[in-house]
């Protein structure tokens, strides 16, 4: 069993127009920039994207949105230092937005991966987030019913990966990545280093390979924050 793929283009080639794609990361931390750029190169259209945010600057998710590839965004916080790409389309009614409280977003994704079609949460009770959702009382307190969230694909970023798909994550770059790996039908992980099977201590594996379908090595991955500080624009404009 070897889940490694040679290059980024091959890794994203299965992603079709109209797919729902979860993209890991919290802001730039843990965002699989190189996979996102490969998907931009492929010009896949009409995507529903699940991410905590809505991109920043002119790279990564922001670039994908700016290029008109995204029909709908499911996120908790579509603001950033430079949210123009999303804001412009949103205010022009050219992109649909589903706002989900961050903890509910995380739990909905985990539930998708764990086979839990719905759960109850106190979050959002009595607010407009609960509009149209069933409410139920347990032990005298009211809770909102929330549904699982699943995806056709997940693009995630990890630190170490082995050919079986076992993964570790670097510091707070973990965030949504392990959850999205569980929830998507097909998870593609970019890893900063592929190591041989057996090299990662089995007690220290954060995402077991069962949740990962493909891995692609991206040595020295870019940080969104660094790219934005250098005013990087993706895809590069060729004169």
């Amino acid at each position, binding site marked *: 069993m070897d889940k490694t793929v040679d290059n980024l283009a091959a890794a994203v080639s299965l992603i079709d127009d109209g797919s729902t794609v979860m993209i890991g990361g919290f802001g730039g931390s843990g965002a699989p920039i190189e996979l996102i750029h490969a998907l931009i190169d492929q010009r896949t259209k009409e995507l529903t994207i699940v991410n905590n945010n809505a991109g920043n600057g002119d790279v990564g998710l922001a670039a994908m949105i700016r290029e008109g590839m995204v029909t709908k965004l499911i996120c908790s916080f579509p603001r950033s230092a430079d949210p123009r790409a999303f804001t412009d389309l949103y205010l022009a009614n050219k992109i649909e937005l589903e706002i989900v409280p961050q903890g509910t977003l995380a739990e909905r994704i985990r539930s998708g991966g*764990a086979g*839990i079609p719905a759960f109850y949460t106190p979050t959002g009770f009595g607010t407009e987030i609960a509009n149209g959702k069933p409410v139920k009382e347990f032990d005298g307190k009211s809770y909102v019913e929330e549904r699982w969230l699943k995806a056709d694909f997940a693009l995630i970023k990890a630190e170490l990966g082995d050919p079986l798909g076992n993964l570790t994550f670097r510091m707070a770059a973990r965030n949504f990545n392990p959850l999205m790996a*569980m929830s998507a039908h097909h998870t593609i992980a970019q890893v900063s280093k592929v190591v041989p099977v057996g090299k990662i201590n*089995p007690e220290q*594996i954060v995402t077991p*390979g069962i949740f990962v379908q493909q891995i692609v090595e991206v040595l020295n991955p870019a940080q969104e924050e660094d790219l934005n500080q250098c005013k990087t624009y993706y895809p590069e404009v060729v004169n």
Partner: protein
Amino acid sequence: MERLNEIKLKNAQIAWRAAQDIEEGSYVNLGIGFPEMIAQYQPEGRDVIYHTENGILGFGGAPTKGQEDWDLINAGKKAVTIKPGSAFFHHADSFAMVRGGHLDLAVLGAYQVAENGDLANWSTGKGGVPAVGGAMDLVHGAKRVAVVTDHITKDGKAKLLNRCTMPLTGVECVTRVYTSLAVIDIKDKQFLLREKLATVSFDEPQTVTGAKLSTGKHVIDLSVPDL
């Protein structure tokens, strides 16, 4: 009946037959007891990753006697070993794998299987101490649920039935049954005979089955090695 008892497969042979169907690269959970034997007959060179409810992916066979580490056991609480690339995780993650549809296959034992795919394998309903373990999660979680079982009970009763009479483990969940006489698929709430021992007639399995056993053109010989 006596004839069938003489020619029927041993558990090891049923396990061998079930092992042949497990595909390269599958993630598989084998129930406690008889189903565990299947791992021994995994065809050479075929990569299969075994999952155990208590939080291991990629475990291997039993350690040498005296080398047991009791923090390294399977769901049946038997000592196991780990293979390179194994992973440990807690019970909620383990059952996320099960319930979330990440396992390709679960193979379980059975008291009874019904033609609609219902399975009874956790309680005889006769009192005593009930114990369900992970079976109810597995039957509604794995992508495919198969059963290995003797075709009939020790006292000669049918285990494949119209409807289960014992408490259910899950509803409409089993799709293939490997018995001591035959391989039977469950489709559209019917038992479909796929393979039978060459030494039994088309009619014989029906005589020890408590529901209609449909036979098509494609019934082939159930052929297993001596074990």
